[in-house]
């Protein structure tokens, strides 16, 4: 299964690991799996920086982003992906960019806690808890 991690889940992995332990477990499982693939949304690193930086110092924030960059595949955010996102009937353009990135990268699912806002996404979004159960069932 190819999983694109939405920004809210990556923020959970980075700095809300106690409140959302399933996000961390899912992240670890997908990265360690020989059969699953991972991705993170193109262009999302600036949002991650802006949000994580409010809780952590500059050095740690940049170290976290570097770690995500080393561990995850970053699909290209092309003009076509951006145009597709702008055409999508989604309330939030950033959610639309995540959806368009997932589609362009051939992902099977988006790991997100914001499922309600991803109803119009061409790739289904599921929360980490549900995805963990799916992955366990598939093995």
């Amino acid at each position: 299964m190819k999983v694109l991690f939405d920004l809210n889940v990556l923020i959970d992995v980075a700095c809300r690991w106690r409140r959302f332990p399933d996000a961390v477990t899912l992240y670890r499982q997908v990265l360690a799996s020989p059969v699953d693939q991972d991705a993170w949304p193109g262009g999302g690193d600036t949002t991650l920086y802006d949000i994580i930086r409010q809780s952590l110092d500059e050095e740690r924030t940049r170290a976290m982003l570097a770690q995500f960059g080393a561990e995850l595949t970053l699909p290209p955010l092309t003009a076509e992906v951006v145009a597709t996102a702008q055409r999508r009937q989604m309330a939030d353009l950033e959610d639309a960019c995540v959806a368009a990135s997932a589609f362009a990268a051939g992902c099977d699912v988006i790991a997100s806690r914001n499922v309600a806002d991803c109803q119009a996404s061409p790739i289904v979004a599921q929360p980490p808890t549900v995805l963990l159960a799916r992955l366990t069932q598939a093995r």
Partner: protein
Amino acid sequence: MAKLTLHVEPDIIDAAKTYAQAHHVSLSKLVTHFFRTLMFPPAPDFWRQLHTTLEREGFTEPPNDLDALRQAHVQRQYQ
């Protein structure tokens, strides 16, 4: 890519092929992954180390509301 010949019990081969097919992955990729884990043992877990340090420092997790966090950023950066 180079070719590799292996001698494996037939039932293991059947099971491996079934697993690979069920997970839409090639046997070559599975074997490559296995060899990689032997050659490159996992580095100390970055996230576990960082979280442990933050916990020791009394770190407070940010709130759930991403929109509020975005707005706080915009206010600081652009207003």
